[in-house]
């Protein structure tokens, strides 16, 4: 019992620098979850589709990028080309999958995205092969000492990238004409169409943006872990982030990622040993689930008033 209720706290207070290190490491790892979660949020906001294929899109983008670099393309060109591929992907998804399924219930669209996910996993690996590849785009990897605390420069870089990405997305959503149209579509498809917003264009844009976000996440994850199939599984970790932050909130995706990332790292390091280790596998989900019991609308959702 004491191994669970007392020892971890003793450890935390005896080695505050170590705790801080774990916490910061967790926060920055959480940012990586947020990157994947962002893609989910974008698509859910604009089309009400729970896009299960976001993880597959991350893998696909990373595979394409690394494949192009291996073929000898310079990094910048490979990135541009990958963006073009992701936009093409968005257009095909809109044309082949979303358009015929318009007005179907949400669960059908969700299933369709699982289909897309399977397809992309198979397609990417058929073209680019399934062995682990290293992705090198020049992100610094050496650790940084701040006082007594060791911080990974790579994670810091990932955190900064995520920050910039969120700022750009926020400006895009709030200030541009397309952004306004997106918000209108998110609110009500039919009303948006009736005032002349072209739904299909909007969907293509939003899936393209999600594709680019997937590429950013793919670069980060790929540089960290190597480009391999297990990235898809890591992407599943974005799901508890989503339920914690709310499906429609961009800040929610960020804060949710920070909470899940730091929570699971701290839990793993200090409580894991008492439970036999590897509690990272489920900790995020349990945390999110317990949280939802008390606040069903998530961190940033509004309280829902039901009407009949």
């Amino acid at each position: 019992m004491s191994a669970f209720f007392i020892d971890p706290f003793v450890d935390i207070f005896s080695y505050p620098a170590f705790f801080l290190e774990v916490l910061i490491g967790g926060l920055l790892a959480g940012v990586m979850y947020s990157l994947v979660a962002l893609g989910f949020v974008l698509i859910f906001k604009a089309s009400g589709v729970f896009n299960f294929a976001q993880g597959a899109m991350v893998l696909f983008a990373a595979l394409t990028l690394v494949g192009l670099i291996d073929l000898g393309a310079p990094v910048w060109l490979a990135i541009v080309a990958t963006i073009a591929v992701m936009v093409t992907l968005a257009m095909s998804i809109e044309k082949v999958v979303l358009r015929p399924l318009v007005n179907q219930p949400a669960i059908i669209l969700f299933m369709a995205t699982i289909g897309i996910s399977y397809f992309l996993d198979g397609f990417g690996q058929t073209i680019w092969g399934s062995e682990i590849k290293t992705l090198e785009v020049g992100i610094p990897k050496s650790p940084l000492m701040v006082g007594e605390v060791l911080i990974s420069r790579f994670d810091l870089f990932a955190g900064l990238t995520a920050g910039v990405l969120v700022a750009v997305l926020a400006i895009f959503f709030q200030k541009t004409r397309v952004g306004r149209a997106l918000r209108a579509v998110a609110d009500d498809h039919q009303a948006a169409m009736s005032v002349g917003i072209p739904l299909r264009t909007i969907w293509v844009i939003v899936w393209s943006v999600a594709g680019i976000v997937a590429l950013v996440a793919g670069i980060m994850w790929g540089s960290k872990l190597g480009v391999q199939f297990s990235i898809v599984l890591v992407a599943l970790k974005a799901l508890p982030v989503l339920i914690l932050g709310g499906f429609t909130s961009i800040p929610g995706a960020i804060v949710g990622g920070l909470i899940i990332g730091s929570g699971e790292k701290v839990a793993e390091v200090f409580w894991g040993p008492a439970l036999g280790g590897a509690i990272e596998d489920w900790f995020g989900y349990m945390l999110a689930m317990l949280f939802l019991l008390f606040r069903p609308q998530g961190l940033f959702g509004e309280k829902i008033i039901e009407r009949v």
Partner: protein
Amino acid sequence: MFYREAGQFKTSYAADQAIFPILQDRIFVAFLLLVAFVVVPVVANEYWLSTILLPFLVFSLAAVGLNLLTGYCGQLSLGTGGFMACGAFAAYKLSTGFPELNIVVVMLASGVITALVGVLFGLPSLRIKGFYLAVATLAAQFFLLWLFNKFAWFTNYSPSGVISAPPRAVFGDFFVTGPQATPAGKYLFALTLVALLALAAKNMVRCRVGRSWMAIRDMDIAAEIIGIRPLTAKLSAFAVSSFYIGVAGAMWAFVYTGSVEALAFQIDRSFQILFMIIIGGLGSILGSFLGAAFITLLPIFLSNAPNIFGLSISVDTVSHFEFMIFGALIVFFLIVEPHGLARLWQIAKEKLRLWPFPY
């Protein structure tokens, strides 16, 4: 022309409430059961029994279970794999801990244990809905697998983490699990359990319980206002669904594969079962069977297809192709018939009423 109910008048509500109100359907089902119970065990070879029919039966049962929860009660769950694992390990612990226990009792008891676990993980459904709930059920998936992986007690401290079904017999010496059991014996055992449980599921969905589940699915607020307690309805759906899935998991470990490790029930398994009910038809018991048949047969067909066309492709590429074709087929199915094979079957029957006349 042959499939017509003209002239079959129902004179009582009992006749009208029957599962198969039409005479031709009753004949067809009787014929099907006869073939399944008598002809197949005699005719089918070992390959057919153990690599096609047994997994089909196990999957059907799991799909019926998930369909009760998702198709009838509207609660999307991605924890099916975890619950199947729960059933498998419960059956293992029960049969090794109490060797004198009858195998049927073991199967049902592991279903009951899974039902209890299911209720526990169903509790969030009282506060959260839709995709939020779906993601919350992933907690069950990951937690349960972690549990069975981490604690050697569940595998009786087997170093490999693999559990093997001990030999058990029904009616004295008719072995249905373990090395002595013949494929035909296992098949008959599985078929009997699945047929009885499917009948029970059909009865449930046409009675009070089923109607309260469907009411919750279609409009939970209205359901509450006409007097359905959401707590009872949702948790009973979780319990019954988990019971079926748990029995399916126990059958997977004991009757189908014979030995199994927790890894067999990863999240892919959850998706596989979900595909079955979507492709088969949400809210249809028959659809669960059709979907299970489709998903069982498809990979077998896909892995044999290159040989048929005389192509030789590496195993790796085949598995990637399988992924692609699987994904594409699912999208295709959703676009063509979002209500699944069960609806196609219904349409075919409508057409058959007129055949061979145009109208």
